[in-house]
């Protein structure tokens, strides 16, 4: 470990983290434009060419807003809750290989911040922590609707985390490793993508992913029609912005996980590997927005029943079938 190694590590962190933050900012614009397109509107196109400076304008606006803390709120928890929801979503990206390894200064550089051998478990652990930002934020606000949003969030996330984890068990049986790098290496050609080995598992995973990042049709914790704004009602200024950045970062990292686990990661012909990775992640991000523009929200009891009575048995069935096929 000398200076060049440290420099390379710092460089990797800066590049990957910077790219993620840039994507978070432009995801807001992307979502608004695509939703507008789906609904036959124009969307924000005034600030800069085709609205490209809109995210910067939004950030500046949010920075200058008054930061209100409600009376009777738990001040400490109220202040750290948005961070708790934002930081875990950024941590996930640390175990995802984003590009082919290349040679810099005569050294082999793997484009993954931390190549640990329990990558998938790390992802599950970090996703498990994401819910606390919402629960603590809802409780610390000392207000009715945020508390209801927080209660919904905790019930929803534990229900869907179970099927999310079980969906991954099938994948682990096929790949035989927890390491993200090895899983990508196994899917070297199109036909070896894990989606073809685990079609049901992927379906369960993507449904669980939608519930995990609280997007429509599973955005019950922030159902604005019934809960005012849900857990983030009392938050303003940058605290509010941090919740939204957390949601978008979660969307991007869960897309990156799906690409890595089921769609061959950065691998692809002709184009350079980071481009392939971004294209695949972009396709998933479009899907997230597309679903938001298409599907209505679940009713709460439907959501819970669907999680426990449909997804969970299907996930167990998937493990069973995978086992039977592997034995045969």
């Amino acid at each position, binding site marked *: 470990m000398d200076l060049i190694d440290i420099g390379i590590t710092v460089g990797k962190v800066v590049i990957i983290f910077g790219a993620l933050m840039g994507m978070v900012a432009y995801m807001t614009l992307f979502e608004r434009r695509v939703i507008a397109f789906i609904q036959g509107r124009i969307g924000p196109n005034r600030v800069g060419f085709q609205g490209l400076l809109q995210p910067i304008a939004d950030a500046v606006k949010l920075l200058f807003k008054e930061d209100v803390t409600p009376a009777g709120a738990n001040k400490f928890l109220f202040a750290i809750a948005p961070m708790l929801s934002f930081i875990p979503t950024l941590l996930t990206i640390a175990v995802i290989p984003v590009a082919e390894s290349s040679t810099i200064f005569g050294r082999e550089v793997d484009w993954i911040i931390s190549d640990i051998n329990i990558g998938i*478990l790390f992802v599950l*652990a970090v996703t498990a*922590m994401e*819910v606390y930002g919402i629960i603590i934020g809802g409780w610390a606000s000392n207000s009715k609707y945020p508390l209801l949003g927080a*209660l919904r969030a*905790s019930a929803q996330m*534990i229900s869907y985390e179970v099927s999310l984890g079980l969906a991954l068990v099938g994948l682990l049986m096929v790949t035989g490793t927890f390491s993200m790098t090895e899983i990508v290496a196994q899917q070297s050609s199109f036909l070896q993508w894990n989606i073809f080995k685990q079609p049901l598992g992927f379906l369960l995973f993507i449904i669980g992913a939608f519930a995990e990042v609280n997007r429509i049709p599973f955005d019950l914790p922030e159902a604005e029609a019934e809960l005012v704004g849900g857990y983030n009602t009392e938050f303003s200024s940058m605290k509010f912005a941090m919740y939204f950045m957390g949601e978008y970062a979660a969307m991007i990292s869960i897309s990156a996980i799906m690409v890595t686990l089921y769609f061959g990661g950065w691998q692809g012909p002709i184009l350079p590997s980071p481009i392939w990775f971004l294209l695949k992640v972009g396709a998933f991000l479009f899907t997230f927005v597309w679903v938001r523009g298409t599907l209505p929200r679940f009713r709460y009891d439907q959501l819970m029943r669907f999680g426990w009575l449909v997804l969970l048995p299907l996930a167990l069935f998937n493990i069973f079938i995978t086992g039977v096929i592997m034995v045969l």
Partner: protein
Amino acid sequence: MYMAIFILFAIMSIAGAIMVITLKSPVSSAIALIFVLCCIAGLFALMGALFMAALQVIVYAGAIMVLFLFIIMLLNLKDEILGEDEKKVTRVFGSILGIAFLLEIGFFVRRALTVGSESLMYPVPEQFASIEVISTGLFTKFLFAFEITSVLLLVAIIGAIMLSKGEGKTEY
């Protein structure tokens, strides 16, 4: 470096544990407990037992504590209600248990110190608490205990369902 991180995690987990029992509101205590569990996961990771660290966060800090918080918030206990429950018997019994536990910890610390400071720092084996080692152990040597535990959990699940359905209630 290793020692510095270890001391940091150790201090944070002890401080968190003290907060768990001293904080007034149950929700704050539960949050402090989450913090403690994460610090312990950090200690596991420091020993190279990444698998244990991940499980600690997923199972305890993630799943179980979410349920804790959920129930505490749902019941929304006020201080007055909690205050009434405080009986003298509980206090006496609790302090006896606490003292016994402290003595036990003290005994082991003393034994470790008398054996020599090197034994405190001896390197953990290469495959310490890796997925292979743990799962091989679970499915061979400790298979019986493992299966008994699953029966125990099954009993708990059935019990929970029976309790929540209640007597005479047929509606789901």
